[in-house]
């Protein structure tokens, strides 16, 4: 089944490194992805995104001009359009907690640390293709539900939120 799904999806790869673009494109093609679009920065990616409307975006974090964070933020700001909810996989060499949390808080769906491995990429693809998290819209956040586990709340329900849910 996996191959048939991959054959039907389109992926936008955004990275300022030609080597990394080539690597990601080659890996995606090996996985059977039929349609891969490439962009070298957030600015160029925006044009490709709006004209091609891919199913998944894989973006590097550090790029000039228009880094991956800015691009992801802009994408998530597309309200009222399905395009604003597409999965974003961010690839980064910065794996410190601050970077990961920053990515999460602007609505990045999955984080992939460099150096990337075929297995890690494949697993992230399966995650976004087949196991989407609910999309959340609040005045301060727009993106996939940041909770990956639904543990019961055992504290004091001061807002009455638990009861409402």
């Amino acid at each position, binding site marked *: 089944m996996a191959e048939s799904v991959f054959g039907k999806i389109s992926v936008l790869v955004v990275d300022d490194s030609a080597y990394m673009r080539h690597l990601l494109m080659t890996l995606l093609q090996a996985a059977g992805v039929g349609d891969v679009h490439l962009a070298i920065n957030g600015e160029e990616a925006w044009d490709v995104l709006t004209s091609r409307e891919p199913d998944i975006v894989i973006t590097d974090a550090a790029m000039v001009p228009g880094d991956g964070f800015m691009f992801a933020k802009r994408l998530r700001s597309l309200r009222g359009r399905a395009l604003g909810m597409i999965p974003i996989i961010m690839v980064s060499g910065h794996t410190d907690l601050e970077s990961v949390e920053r990515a999460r808080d602007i609505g990045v769906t999955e984080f992939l640390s460099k150096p990337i491995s075929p297995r890690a990429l494949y697993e992230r693809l399966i995650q976004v293709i*087949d196991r989407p998290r*609910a999309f959340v819209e609040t005045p301060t956040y727009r993106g996939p539900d940041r909770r990956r586990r639904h543990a019961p709340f055992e504290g004091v329900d001061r807002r009455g939120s638990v009861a409402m849910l």
Partner: protein
Amino acid sequence: MTQQIVHSRLAGREAAAGETPPDVRFIRVPSIAERKLGPDYTAPMRLDPRVLDKMQTTIRKLESKYGEALSAQVSMLQLLVEPAAKGDTEARGRLYALAHDMRGLAGTFGFPVAGRFANSLCIYLEKCLEEDWRDGSVIRLHIDAIREAVDNPGTDPALTMETLNALERLIAANGARWKDAG
């Protein structure tokens, strides 16, 4: 594409008395697999060893090409140190870009040690000051370590770790000075 399932009134912060909490919407997003395959969709999608094998074979094919490119990149790093130390901003930009590429790619293509040294170099370059560029000694130490890792991948891991730790200590020792400089 989407179907709204909950329209709650939960606040992202504590709501004051009498204040209406802002809207929070939870939207169910159908899986891409479900959308693309329609009735042929059977959940859950699992990792297919054949697909993974194809991806890994692809990496192996690219490895030898990358090894040659990496060696050339290290030579380029060595050439860029001097103009970078003299204030050539283009050389500095290229030096960082090469190290950044190595940080991201070397590990994938079987040069994890070179990738770690490149990572350490990137961390240093992201923080260092003009005087550090002009001095250039820490940059040179990193590039020598990368060269060694590329030319002699079989080096004793303990020795590699010792070198890496020493470079990291060197970077950490500069932390206070960089902080003072803002």
